């Protein structure tokens, strides 16, 4: 099995150190906020990659788990006035419950059913938020969440720590025999069956793990924005996450996390261009995906690490 090499570890430490120290050097609450969002998107992208990148079963509704986690935090804060720290475990539980509801009937099937069910489920949840506006706050969403940590810088460090833990756990799993099985499922489900592997179980378990981290990220986002609203369930969020994964390099876990950070930063940096920023952003994406179909970060790092060795 592949083990995390010293060079990979050194690279990870440098990246995390730069991410952790940048807001201290520049001392800007705006930048700290942007980096917090970067880290949350990175959690979402890495968690998407663990299930869909490894097994090849594309999930077009990751926002279902993100929104479920965020709204769990929202309801806990505004209905039950719970301690905000309860949001995190509760968000994980609810997101995993949603993954069971969608995954159980569809992951046993081959074909596009799982992808379509995820897409549909997230769209339905977005509509339900509008229909049951008395409870969900409708378009406005839910307001008045308490921050988990008052200082924006300390909260950013906390989110960054969660990201590091998430990437470490998911990478360890992906490099284990478990990850080998998930990649075998991507290769050929019939051969897996012939090898005595319960394919549905492994797909389901990996979706639950993916959902757990996505829901956790959702709750972190809710306690950063201090409000939740229906667009969290939107297809745009799901697609954004998928694009981040492809730009980062699908199936590598750390690549998608870095891809998410880069694309979130790019979006923010382009704000100065006003209306043109969508053009620039889209054009950049198209160029990356056209010339680097395997993504930007992971292949680049592999080449660099090879050189350093």
């Amino acid at each position: 099995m592949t083990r995390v090499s010293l060079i990979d570890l050194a690279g990870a430490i440098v990246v995390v150190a730069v991410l952790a120290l940048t807001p201290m050097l520049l001392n800007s609450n705006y930048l700290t906020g942007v980096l917090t969002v970067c880290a949350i998107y990175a959690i979402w992208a890495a968690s998407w990659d663990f299930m869909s990148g490894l097994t090849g079963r594309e999930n077009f509704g990751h926002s279902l788990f993100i929104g479920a986690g965020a709204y769990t935090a929202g309801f806990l804060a505004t209905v039950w006035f719970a301690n905000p720290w309860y949001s995190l475990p509760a968000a994980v539980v609810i997101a995993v419950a949603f993954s069971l509801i969608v995954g159980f009937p569809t992951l046993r099937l081959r074909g596009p059913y799982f992808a379509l069910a995820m897409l549909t489920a997230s769209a339905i949840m977005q509509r339900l938020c509008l229909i049951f506006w008395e409870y969900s706050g409708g378009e406005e969403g839910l307001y008045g969440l308490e921050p988990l940590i008052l200082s924006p810088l300390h909260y950013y460090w906390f989110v960054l720590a969660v990201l590091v833990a998430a990437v470490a756990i998911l990478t360890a799993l992906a490099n284990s025999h478990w990850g080998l099985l998930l990649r075998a499922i991507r290769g050929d489900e019939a051969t897996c069956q012939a090898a005595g592997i319960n394919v549905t179980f492994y797909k389901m378990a990996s979706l639950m793990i993916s959902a757990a981290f996505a829901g956790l990220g959702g709750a972190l986002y809710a306690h950063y924005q201090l409000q939740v609203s229906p667009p969290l369930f939107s297809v745009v969020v799901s697609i954004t996450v998928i694009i981040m994964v492809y730009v980062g390099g699908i199936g590598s876990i750390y690549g998608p996390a870095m891809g998410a950070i880069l694309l979130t930063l790019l979006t923010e940096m382009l704000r100065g261009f006003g209306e043109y920023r969508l053009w620039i952003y889209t054009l950049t994406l198209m160029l990356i995906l056209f010339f680097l179909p395997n993504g930007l970060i992971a292949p680049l790092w592999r080449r660099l690490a090879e050189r350093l060795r």
Partner: protein
Amino acid sequence: MSAILDVQNVSKRFGGLTAVKNVSFSLAPGELTGILGPNGAGKTTLFNLLTGFIPADSGSIRFEGQELRGLAPYKIVNRGVARTFQLTRPFLGMTVLQNVIVACLSPRARDAHDKEARAQQLLDQVGLGAKAGDAVETLPYGDLRRLEIARALATKPNLLLLDEPFAGLGSSEIEPLAQLIRRLHREQNLTILLIEHKLREFMALVSRVIAIDFGEIIAVAAPADIVRDPRVIEAYIGRTEAEHAPA
């Protein structure tokens, strides 16, 4: 001795076509049996029914006294029935060793704690030990067949089903593979059922032949006798005499 596999009246229809019709046979433990039939006779469909890849419409498939019909393919494997595919299906993007490790992770292989060592041992057994670290894409066809067998053996089968193991192989690859099958049968006392439509490799290998045509069993006999059976000659040899004349 009671049968290890007992198949009774198994049928499968695809629309208007009956692919397998009222097939009944049984295998004694340790037997090396062949299923013979021209292309399209329903051999592979029968294999898919036995291994759960296609659900049977009717009949019963009892293995070591327990019904297999209705079980998912991976459950059948974990009862001790392993198969290979005629078109080999390796996991691409992995090494040869990793391909076998996947099967070593099945519940039936639980007691092998060091999966790498177990997979390496299986590769040695089928003669692929030196290629463990190679990318699976680089293996020639004959080695892929061996890899299929190693993967099947990883699940510790009591019954091994080989789907046309010699198809597409060159003459230099056929005899060593036949020797491997013979050795597995002898050393591990493995019950083996293999499909083949070429008579030559078959005859020297198996002790009993089940001949099928149009999804039905038309004869069961020793290899030497099967070629004299008039129904077999009519269904099989009569049709493709030049190509498949017995050796």
